[in-house]
């Protein structure tokens, strides 16, 4: 590239940064500051406001759904209406910049060259054709691109293609992707907090802002519930080594720099080697139900497990915190899907043929019995089963559920190489009378399933123990 190539800076502003004129003015000043500092800013905006605001995405969806609540809108139309929120936002933001004396132009995702697959509602960016953006930048414009959307390739009927939306975290993803395609010097994600926090500041007063963290850490925190940068955006930045910053629209604090682990560990000072083994933060997420099936020590346990997983998969129920034990199977399901899981399990029968077993009945039928009065199907099916299948053994599998659970996670790089991480977490929680129903760990985090009513205390105590001492 020529030495005179523009230094492109992608700046993304979320819903709370563009929801009111005074906030848009603050956001616009960040753009102007970058322009005056010699950068060529490319702005990405989310829809204006959230939750019921007139042009928020959920409000627009409601307009369509209200046409006839019994008839779900077609995915094509749904994506078109969802994309309107960002279109309005980009137009208003571009005009804001124009009123401040700057050349700005609003662009849809398609106009910005974002090409996606045709998976409406959750499209994947396939490529970005950045020539139009480069021409506008060369001409001195500040492009204001709609986040969260793209366009499919033209097909036999539609020229040029259909509008698609990128699904959750779509605007962050747009910003990261544009950063890569435009070879930006950095991507700045502006939000209403001043960077990546060590915990949810609404729960932990002493939550501090991290100066630097790795792409992996920020992706893990986001997955575990911290609302910072969407993991998709972090992954794109990581794969292409684009520097990412999380900053506040409402302050001039430096924010959090997100970089690769080599760069982070070589920074020295407070970071260096210690970053490879540090606890980054405490996150919490999810409303889940923990289900335990008491199979006992039966020979067909693996078959029962497979059938349970199969039933859940066929019904679209995601399961996690899966645990094998010699006498039981346990797993968690999202609370929203629990009624489906409960209906599936109540009275569910797993028939297993007893082959070549001397003296054994022809088959064993395992039937699930919910405890606590939730066993209507069991009560109907068991007598029927006994009457029609006298030659089989029928074994009850009691099922219990702990409702109102949630997941609290400690984000800790390389914790699997450090003894005592779970001991510290377990001790901190149980000393405070918080029951840990189950644990799960990955390479970057340790998670505990606890009661939702304990979440605030759990996050506070873990933060105090692991990040303040």
């Amino acid at each position, binding site marked *: *590239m020529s030495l005179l190539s523009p230094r492109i800076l992608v700046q993304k502003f979320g819903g709370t940064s563009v929801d009111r004129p005074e906030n848009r003015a603050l956001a616009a000043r960040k753009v102007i500051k970058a322009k005056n500092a010699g950068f060529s800013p490319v702005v990405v905006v989310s829809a204006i406001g959230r939750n019921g605001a007139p042009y928020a995405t959920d409000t627009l969806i409601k307009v369509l759904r209200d046409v006839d609540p019994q008839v779900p809108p077609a995915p094509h139309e749904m994506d078109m209406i969802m994309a309107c929120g960002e279109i309005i936002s980009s137009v208003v933001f571009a005009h804001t910049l124009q009123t401040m004396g700057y050349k700005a132009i609003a662009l849809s995702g398609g106009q910005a060259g974002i090409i996606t697959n045709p998976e409406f509602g959750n499209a994947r960016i396939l*490529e970005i054709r*950045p*020539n139009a953006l480069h021409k506008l930048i060369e001409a001195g414009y500040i492009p204001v691109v709609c986040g969260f959307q793209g366009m499919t390739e033209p097909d036999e009927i539609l020229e040029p293609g259909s509008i698609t939306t990128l699904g959750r975290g779509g605007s962050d993803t747009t910003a990261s992707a544009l950063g890569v*395609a435009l070879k930006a010097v950095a991507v700045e994600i502006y939000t209403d907090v001043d960077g990546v926090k060590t915990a949810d500041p609404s729960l932990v007063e002493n939550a501090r802002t991290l100066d630097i963290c790795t792409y992996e850490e920020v992706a893990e925190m986001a997955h575990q519930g911290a609302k910072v940068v969407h993991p998709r955006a972090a992954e794109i930045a990581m794969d292409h080594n684009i520097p990412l910053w999380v900053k506040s629209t409402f302050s001039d604090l430096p924010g959090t720099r997100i970089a690769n682990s080599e760069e982070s560990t070589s920074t020295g000072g407070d970071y260096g080697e210690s970053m490879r083994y540090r606890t980054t933060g405490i996150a919490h997420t999810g409303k889940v139900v923990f289900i335990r099936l008491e199979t006992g020590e039966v020979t067909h346990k693996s078959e029962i497990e497979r059938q349970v997983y199969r039933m*859940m998969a066929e019904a679209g129920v995601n399961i996690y915190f899966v645990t094998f*034990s010699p006498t039981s199977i346990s797993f968690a399901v999202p609370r929203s899907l629990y009624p489906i899981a409960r209906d599936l399990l109540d009275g569910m029968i797993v028939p297993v043929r007893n082959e070549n077993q001397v003296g054994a009945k022809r088959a064993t039928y395992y039937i699930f019995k919910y405890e606590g009065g939730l066993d209507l199907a069991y009560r109907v099916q068991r007598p029927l089963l006994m009457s029609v299948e006298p030659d089989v053994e029928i074994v009850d599998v009691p099922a219990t559920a702990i409702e109102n659970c949630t997941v609290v996670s400690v984000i800790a790089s390389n914790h*699997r*190489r450090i003894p005592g991480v779970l001991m510290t977490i377990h001790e901190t929680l149980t000393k405070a009378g918080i029951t840990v129903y189950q*644990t799960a760990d990955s390479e970057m985090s340790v998670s505990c399933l606890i009661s939702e009513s304990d979440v605030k205390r759990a996050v506070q105590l873990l933060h105090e123990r692991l990040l303040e001492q």
Partner: protein
Amino acid sequence: MDSRTPQIIPNVTFERERGVHAIQVTHDVAHAVMAIDSEAYPTHAAGVQFLLRALNDAQIPLFLIKLHRTAITAGLAGVYLPKLEEAMAREGIRVKTRRDLSLIIVKAALMRETSGVMVQISDALVAAKANLFQTGDSHNSVQCLIEADRTDAALNELCKTFHLEASAVIESPLTEERAR
């Protein structure tokens, strides 16, 4: 070239494929079932804590730690097994161990928003005649502890199930010494 002439920038392809994209395998892994004698402790949590402390005192890093009514189970690098058995004997804790295992980690984007991955893995392992000793899951992975001598068969079946090339299988060490 005139710096004002717009450059032709090549189109960029970048966002990761969704679904299972890689399998990580770690060899020389062990599994331990450590009993909690419910009568020896005032509460189950106290029993769990006693055990976790004993493991910490012995400086044994663990993973796939699961809490059960009468035991804790965990995976560990095989090199730590003698240390664990020694620590458990010292504390009078009954332990059942299994060595020669492999940890297979199936990696996917947005695992917890996708149903059916667990059953696909389970079917692949059955086809490979690989017994599953423990499993764990996170937003981007499902981890499976299986017998070492079924590792190759399991990897083949998993690659077949998720349409992966052999190059998608990555070997990864567990202990820092090995990493270096």
